């Protein structure tokens, strides 16, 4: 049963952060600085979903959760969706399309430079996510393009770390999780090669 409905449930789960945000907006619950809150919230979910996307393959290998891995693309696309909203909010609300100030940020604020590169790296992944595109460009090239998620994830973690003042626990926690998944993938890669 779960398998049959899994896709539906996953859609619901993935939309939940956005619905929560809209609920908070309706309740005037975004606190003293609603713009900052929304941007951090959207970026936070983008990063969380990016890491969850990377967790799916290890879970498939360890627990045989094929139902989840069938939906990996959905997680990745929702991560991209939240990161896009994060950037739209920054450009359109926080900076209110002040391109001069935005460019100033991009070139002078390292954490914004790093974050933007991570986003740019994710665009080809999103564009080549359909079955049609996989066929069109071929599996090998597709895999190579999609390895970019690892670089994007490293940069996204770095972006979060640099954004916070001082050395804070939360960004380190995310970076630690990423390292864990990455080491796991390397371990399995080596094991498969030796078999």
């Amino acid at each position, binding site marked *: 049963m779960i398998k049959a409905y899994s896709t539906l449930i996953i859609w619901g789960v993935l939309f939940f952060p956005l619905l929560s945000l809209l609920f908070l907006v309706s309740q005037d619950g975004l606190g*003293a600085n609603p713009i900052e809150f929304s941007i951090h919230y959207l970026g936070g979910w983008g990063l969380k979903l990016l890491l969850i996307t990377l967790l799916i393959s290890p879970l498939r290998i360890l627990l045989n959760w094929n139902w989840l891995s069938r939906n990996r693309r959905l997680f990745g696309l929702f991560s991209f969706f939240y990161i896009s909203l994060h950037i739209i909010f920054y450009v359109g609300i926080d900076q209110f399309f002040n391109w001069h100030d935005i460019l100033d940020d991009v070139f002078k604020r390292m954490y914004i430079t790093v974050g933007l590169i991570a986003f740019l790296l994710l665009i080809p992944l999103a564009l080549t996510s359909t079955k049609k595109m996989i066929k069109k460009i071929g599996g090998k090239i597709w895999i190579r393009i999609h390895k970019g998620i690892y670089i994007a994830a490293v940069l996204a973690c770095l972006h979060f770390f640099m954004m916070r003042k001082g050395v804070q626990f939360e960004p380190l926690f995310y970076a630690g999780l990423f390292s864990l998944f990455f080491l796991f993938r390397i371990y399995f890669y080596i094991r498969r090669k030796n078999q």
Partner: protein
Amino acid sequence: MLIKTIKINDIKSSEITSESSYYARRDFLISLTAIGGGIALGSLALESKAKDLKISEFKENKWTKEYLGESLTSFDDITNYNNFYEFGTRKTDPSKNAKDFKSKPWTIIVDGLCGNPGRYSYDQIIRTSNLEERVYRFRCVEAWSMVVPWVGVPLKSVINLFNPLSKAKYVAFETLLDPKQMPGQKSNILEWPYREGLRFDEAINPLALLAVGIYGKELPNQNGAPIRLVVPWKYGFKSIKSIVRISFSEHEPQTSWNMASASEYGFYSNVNPEVSHPRWSQKKERRIGEFFKQPSLMFNGYQNEVESLYEGMNLRKFF
């Protein structure tokens, strides 16, 4: 009853003093004093003990809301959007985690180059009759800002109590170190206790305030109870909270954010739109409660009062 005892942390948002009702009430109390004499009001104020300060007795000064001409940030925002890493790194952490903080009794240790070192109680330092209300801009290094109606005494008047020696060139401050009460101190994001400092002439500038209240009430714990510094021409982190130590020294004291990252946070940290921070352009700021950013002002708009302190100094070097 005119004045009730209110525990600040228990206030529902619906009950929070709005700017207009705060001023209406104050005007009413002042007129009461004028009509009925101070006696009746005095007894009312005594009954109100805990969290209300005796607002009819503020000493006159020029830093009124009218003088500033900008609207106040709401009590709700000032008390729920705080950087006070001793209670957690999120803006909403301090209001949640500082609820049970004990700010009474309170002792401040005074040491270093002064004639009257020793342990001082809160009451020895703060005389209620000296309290002033000052409406100041408050500009955080993170490019947001507020307008806060502080209650406090001029720092200079307190420094004079300690009879500093002429050798004293700097004043250093320390926040309480108590990881049991301040859970944020269990992580080493900063080297605790929190430290700040001013040059002596900055400290005795008439703008510098030791604040004990906001909106006519005692300082809520998350805002640095019971006693904190307010230096409105500097970024907010210079305005150290919950002070337990004041030291006079010949040499520039170490300051917490400078120790954590000297390239980002200078000793002076004057608000300066011309000198950008690696993470924030300081040209603009978002006033809490407003949508559009506004240009930041040199010395946070207190140029006339403090400019002379920095004559001949390269403010890019001494940022």
